[in-house]
């Protein structure tokens, strides 16, 4: 993309203008909505959003309306990456042929976990492979939330969803560990992806700058944004930011960038808090036994080591 990277220095220095306006049917305290607002703010006026089916489609556009000040189009849950590719190529061609006088816009896909890494993974992968000038953002609320909270490949081990309810036969509820989209999209297997980053709404300035960086990099960029979900995770709506921070503090979410394949940690972390601190107060985890928590802690510790986080890790009980 031809945008120049302009860092946002602080909360107070964040741009004033809103591009994700009041008036949407998202849950009170909705994490993805906070994400959308920050992303739209960072991207600015010259932006086109592609919204595959999911909470950020249905909840935002109920009914026959929407909160975006910039152009936005629906896409199928399956094809956010493909529709964005078509839009990108169209703009490039129409500008090249002189059929339109537009400036090439920021093209951003806002896809949920399903639309990015499950049913939408094929289209996303193809977009990354073909090298389109598109920023693909995965807003991760760790479930298929819009349909009433069903398991997705991003639901953590032990996460209670309507497809992974705990019971005597399956005490942990969810037995599987999640996919790692950063590894899949940006781990070197898609050579055209030069910039990818995880982000969290708990660290809004960091998130906004990563959006801008992604837009500034040539070719496709990928952002994986952690967005706690009061309905899906079952917690009081005011804890959304709190939980986002706890996820990072416990290693249930790692915050880093991959620039040309080189990892750069976004925060100095000397020591990880035990996962219990994050699990506490989330209804989706109340059924977990100590052995399940231990498994989660072990997983966090292993990931921290594999990713090369230099921090003291909590013991596995």
């Amino acid at each position, binding site marked *: 993309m031809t945008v120049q990277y302009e860092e946002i220095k602080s*909360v*107070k220095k*964040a741009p*004033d203008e*809103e591009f*994700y*306006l*009041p*008036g*949407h*049917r*998202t849950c*009170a*305290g*909705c*994490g993805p*909505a*906070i994400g959308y*607002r*920050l992303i739209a703010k960072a991207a600015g006026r010259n932006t086109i959003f592609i919204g595959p089916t999911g909470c950020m489609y249905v909840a935002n556009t*109920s*009914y*026959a*309306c*929407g*909160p*975006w*000040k*910039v*152009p*936005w189009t629906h896409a199928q849950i399956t094809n956010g990456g493909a529709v964005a590719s078509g839009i990108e190529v169209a703009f490039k061609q129409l500008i090249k042929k002189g059929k339109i006088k537009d400036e090439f816009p920021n093209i951003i896909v806002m896809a949920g976990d399903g639309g990015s890494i499950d049913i939408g993974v094929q289209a996303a992968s193809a977009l990354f492979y073909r090298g389109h000038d598109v920023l693909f953002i995965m807003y991760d609320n760790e479930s298929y939330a819009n349909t009433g909270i069903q398991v997705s490949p991003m639901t953590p081990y032990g996460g209670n969803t309507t497809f992974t309810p705990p019971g005597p036969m399956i005490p942990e509820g969810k037995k599987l560990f999640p996919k790692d989209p950063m590894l899949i999209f940006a781990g070197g297997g898609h050579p055209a992806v030069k910039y990818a980053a995880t982000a969290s*709404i708990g660290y*809004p300035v960091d998130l906004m700058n990563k959006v801008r960086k992604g837009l500034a990099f040539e070719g496709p960029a990928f952002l994986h944004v952690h967005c706690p979900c*009061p309905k899906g995770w079952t917690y*009081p*709506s*005011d*804890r*959304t*930011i*709190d939980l986002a921070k706890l996820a990072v503090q416990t290693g249930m979410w790692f915050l880093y960038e991959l620039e040309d394949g080189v990892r750069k940690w976004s925060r100095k972390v000397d020591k990880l808090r035990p996962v219990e601190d994050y699990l506490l107060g989330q209804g989706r985890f109340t059924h977990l036994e100590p052995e399940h928590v231990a498994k989660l802690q072990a997983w966090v510790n292993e990931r921290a080591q594999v990713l090369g986080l230099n921090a003291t890790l909590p013991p596995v009980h």
Partner: protein
Amino acid sequence: MAKSYPEVPFAAIVPCPTVENDKMVTGNWRSLRPVVDMETCTFCKTCWLLCPDASVVSDDEAEEISFNLKYCKGCGICSSVCPVDAIRRVPELDFTD
């Protein structure tokens, strides 16, 4: 009697809003209203930035915070993220407006 249907836009394409999306007014969801104590407030603008509904209004000149009660859902995030506890959540039923 034949039922009459609403006018629908071509191919379900609607214009973007410019200030607010008043087709989905959400202020009536609220059971707890945010109230800010401007004496305590340090105008760090964290509440403003993190409101999912862009309903914390920041007057940069006067350095004052207020709330867009037409849309505020009462989620309480503003209150929760405030570093100096300047925002209380007060039951809606306590207000007469």
